[in-house]
């Protein structure tokens, strides 16, 4: 179940946009009160299936990618960090591309239901278009955020055993890397048949970077005040994916 932020409705009041061009209508129609209601209802209608589907797909894809790319990496923190970066980006992107048009339609319908009958049809249509255009991205960013949050929680559940296996190996002083490599070699020609340069090397900065790039990708939306308040961590952090730059990156860290 997609869970919206419980304080969402209060926030909506602060973030809905009432275009100055509608000033004449705004007071008469109580737009400040009604537009948040419409945005909220549209989100409630559109969000659950979009988040459910986007998160399910993103988790399946990210799970397969990180368990493949980090199969021999003994460090569960790198695995977790890569998984979070990838799954947030994939889930958020899918949610945005899926929700935008349905949300536009739903928001127009909700506004129409709340405002119709109070003015002439052609005036209403014009006002609706302005209100929908001005507030669509607010709704999109809320749905995107719900998808990325759920995706991070869900991927951690899927990967719990993989995290634990690495922790356990370390606690027992077992060589995770060699064992994983051996297990792989029993599966088939690949990845053993890959040239050295293409094989996963735990902690190698040039390789880790591709997962860090997920955080650097421009999201669909231009910066929005709500997004900014949601994401104080907008800039990519110093990466936990990489090993300390002491020249030992290619070394097997697990001894």
């Amino acid at each position, binding site marked *: 179940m997609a869970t919206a932020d419980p304080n969402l409705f209060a926030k909506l009041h602060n973030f809905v946009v009432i275009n100055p061009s509608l000033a004449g209508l705004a007071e008469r129609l109580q737009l400040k009160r009604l537009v948040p209601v419409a945005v909220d209802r549209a989100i409630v209608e559109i969000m659950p299936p979009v988040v459910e589907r986007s998160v399910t797909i993103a988790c399946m894809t990210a799970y397969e990618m990180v368990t493949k790319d980090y199969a021999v990496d003994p460090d569960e923190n790198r695995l977790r960090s890569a998984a979070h970066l990838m799954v947030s*980006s994939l889930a958020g992107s899918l949610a945005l591309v899926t929700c935008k048009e349905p949300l536009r339609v739903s928001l127009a319908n909700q506004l129409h239901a709340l405002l119709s009958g109070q003015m002439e049809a052609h005036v209403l249509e014009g006002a609706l278009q302005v209100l929908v255009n001005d507030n669509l991205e607010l709704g999109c960013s809320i749905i995107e955020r719900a998808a990325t949050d759920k995706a991070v929680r869900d991927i951690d559940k899927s990967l719990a055993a993989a995290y634990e296996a690495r922790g356990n190996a370390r606690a027992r002083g077992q060589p995770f890397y060699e064992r994983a490599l051996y297990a792989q070699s029993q599966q088939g020609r690949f990845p053993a048949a890959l040239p050295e340069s293409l094989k996963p090397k735990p902690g190698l900065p040039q390789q880790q970077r*591709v997962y860090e790039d997920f955080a650097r990708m421009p999201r669909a939306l231009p910066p929005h005040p709500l997004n900014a308040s949601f994401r104080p961590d907008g800039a990519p952090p110093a990466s936990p994916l990489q090993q300390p730059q002491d020249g030992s990156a290619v070394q097997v860290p697990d001894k």
Partner: protein
Amino acid sequence: MSSNEIETYVHQLINPATRENALLELSKKRENFPELAPYLWYSFGTIAALLQEIVSIYPLLSPPALTAHASNRVCNALALLQCVASHPETRGLFLQAHVPLFLYPFLNTVSKTRPFEYLRLTSLGVIGALVKERMPQAGHRVCGAMAEIALLHGGRTTLGVDDTDVINFLLSTEIIPLCLRTMEMGSELSKTVATFIVQKILLDDVGLNYICATAERFFAVGAVLGNMVVMLAEQPSPRLLKHIIRCYLRLSDNPRAREALRQCLPELLRNPGFTACLKSDDTTRRWLAQLLVNVGFPEAAAQLSNEMLQPTPLQGQ
């Protein structure tokens, strides 16, 4: 291209600074290196990088803002995924990771500009590569690059994942409505590839039962096939007609669909003037004759084939 060069280009895919050129070089030469698919799949981060290429153009889909350059670039990435989709060692993994679903937003676009048309066609090419046997043959190449991508990689046997697995995947992810949409509004080549995919789905028992399970599904497919036939009267395309006829013939294997087709099969298919274009295509002419016999038009069938055809046995529920 030597194995060393391939290795270098694959390695360059994970670096955004070298990626665009590597995409171009690899997509040009992908057919000459049979190990490319496992290299792409098993090398560190390569599929993650290709997924970045895909989702990074989502913001350009609506409102439509895809440039020719952005379209070409992502289509080169899709061409590499097509290798992965068609290679027996990677196809099952590709499906298990649900990578094809990231292409579905492309098939949902409606803009008719060339960058979008190219994007939809290339995406269909990846889906088409999942269903085995040959992709539709281009009679002539309207646009070399587009046809080339759509026609890649046929005829390889599948290992590890069988056809029914692929069909189940496609059905459960709702590819049919997306194919129908392309069959309604795509270019002739896109229509052909989309119809080919529906044909492959129908040829599997699971697919036939799925489409004939409800009247709504059957009539959705029937209406789109019928509209395409009508359109072909104005703009003939023998290769598209061939796939349409094969779809109808397969539908006629299902009892309820056979009954319904008696009413809704386009009359044009019984019109010798319209079907004259099949004169040199014995296989398709025989399919059409069999279809007409199945749904109860033996006289029309006799004009197409000298053989005495019997209705094919019914299948499924």
